[in-house]
């Protein structure tokens, strides 16, 4: 930048109050164009300085993405239960009934006292996002099946959500798979409300919509219940194939 003051008409000073009217001649304002930029401007910002600004912008964007990830853990929340079902530890019961020899009603404490398993698996939403290496603590469905002893007619299992809107189902054979479980802890801590407190179904090799949150009832049936999204055209057996 040159030390002498530039022509105010072509190089307006910073303060608006000092602004002089545009040099409108008889030919109209646009007729008098400013002189082209001189070499002085080029010295004011070096190439390295500009690249520095670009790099700072990139780092800021990347940091924002990391912060977003940190706040959400990579999860997007999908629910059709409004308002979100409330979990009251004193009032909560898990009901396991239907075509079983020994129906069962468990309090939250009794649920947590059942033989527990831990599973680390990737969560996949049908929308195209996923969360890798989610740690689930809970109870294998096989454990519950052994406890309630389904009758010979029972070929299907329906899972009901606390809000009464969402449900989904598995075949009994699918429910007996070793990685099919109900989970009360996620990554070492009790499920938080938006992740389905106190209990959700985890079926890691199917898309996430097969795992109802806010789980309150497990019903053994002789016919298949069509799940909430499956009534709207989604696949019943949501195996992940790719």
């Amino acid at each position, binding site marked *: 930048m040159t030390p002498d003051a*530039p022509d105010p008409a*072509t*190089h*307006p*000073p*910073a303060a*608006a*109050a000092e*602004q002089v*009217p*545009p*040099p*409108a*001649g*008889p030919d*109209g*304002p*646009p007729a008098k*164009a*400013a002189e*082209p*930029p001189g070499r002085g*401007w*080029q010295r*004011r*910002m070096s190439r390295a*300085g*500009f690249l520095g*600004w670009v790099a700072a912008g990139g780092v800021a*964007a990347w940091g*924002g*993405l990391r912060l*977003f*990830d940190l706040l959400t853990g*990579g999860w*997007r*929340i*999908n*629910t*059709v239960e*409004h308002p979100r079902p409330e979990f009251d530890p004193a009032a909560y019961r898990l009901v396991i009934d239907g075509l079983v020899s020994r129906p069962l009603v468990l309090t939250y404490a009794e649920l947590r006292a059942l033989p527990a398993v831990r599973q680390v698996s990737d969560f*996949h939403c*049908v*929308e*195209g*996002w*996923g969360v890798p290496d989610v740690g689930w603590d809970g109870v294998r469905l096989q454990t519950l099946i052994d406890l309630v002893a389904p009758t010979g007619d029972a070929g299907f299992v329906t899972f009901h959500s606390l809000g009464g809107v969402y449900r989904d189902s598995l075949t009994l054979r699918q429910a007996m798979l070793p990685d099919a479980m109900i989970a009360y802890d996620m990554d070492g801590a009790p499920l938080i409300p938006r992740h389905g407190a106190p209990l959700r179904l985890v079926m890691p090799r199917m898309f996430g919509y097969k795992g109802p949150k806010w789980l309150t009832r497990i019903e053994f049936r002789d016919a298949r219940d069509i799940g909430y999204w499956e*009534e*709207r*055209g989604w696949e019943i057996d949501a195996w*992940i*194939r*790719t």
Partner: protein
Amino acid sequence: MDSHLSDGAVVPPAGPDASARVRRYGVATRLWHWAFAALFLCLLATGLTNFWPEAKALQAGGERLFAWTHVVVGFAFVGALPLLGLLLLLRSRDFRADLAAAHRVRTEDLVWVQEQGVRLAGGDARPPPPGKFNGGQKLNAWAVAALTAGLAGSGVVLGVHWVDRDRLDLGFVESVFPWHTALALVAAVLVAGHVALAVLVPGTRGALGGMLHGRVSAAWAQRHHPRWRPPDGDAR
């Protein structure tokens, strides 16, 4: 009419041409801007419902309203908009000139951005006088181009997965998803700033008329774009 005065400066009437208007954008440029803006805003709004579970769950005819709209408009965005752009490029010299000028970044444009930043921070700086587009507008043009490329590319991956979830590798799709989200959030900030400058900020909203009806006041043009020469004899 007096938008060029509204940044608080006391500007005496500049002779007989104080209320003169000059032509800033032709029909093609405005058509492109508003077609692009309408689809982009629709995509942004429907996409941002990802952060609002109650809205995201809204359904129409058994489909999730906003997810479905997002996918359909998204395919229109990547399918139809390039055709419109191509048509306008072929048919309109003004559109070609505007597009080129908005993306032609020179050193003085970068200096303009830096000096304007110093000036907004209260420092003493003198941004070099811009031509038809100042450095901020040019950076915006490039940011929009880059964000659009990234959003369209990642969006096509997610859209194809939406239509047929067995077609693409799930790990690939899931690696693309966060980038689509991040770019959309950056775009939301950029669009909010763009709209605020166009509608709310007194010093810059004089530009809005140019994109609405094609004309701005000659005094505004001289003040904000001193090195721009509007087309002669067209002050309709």
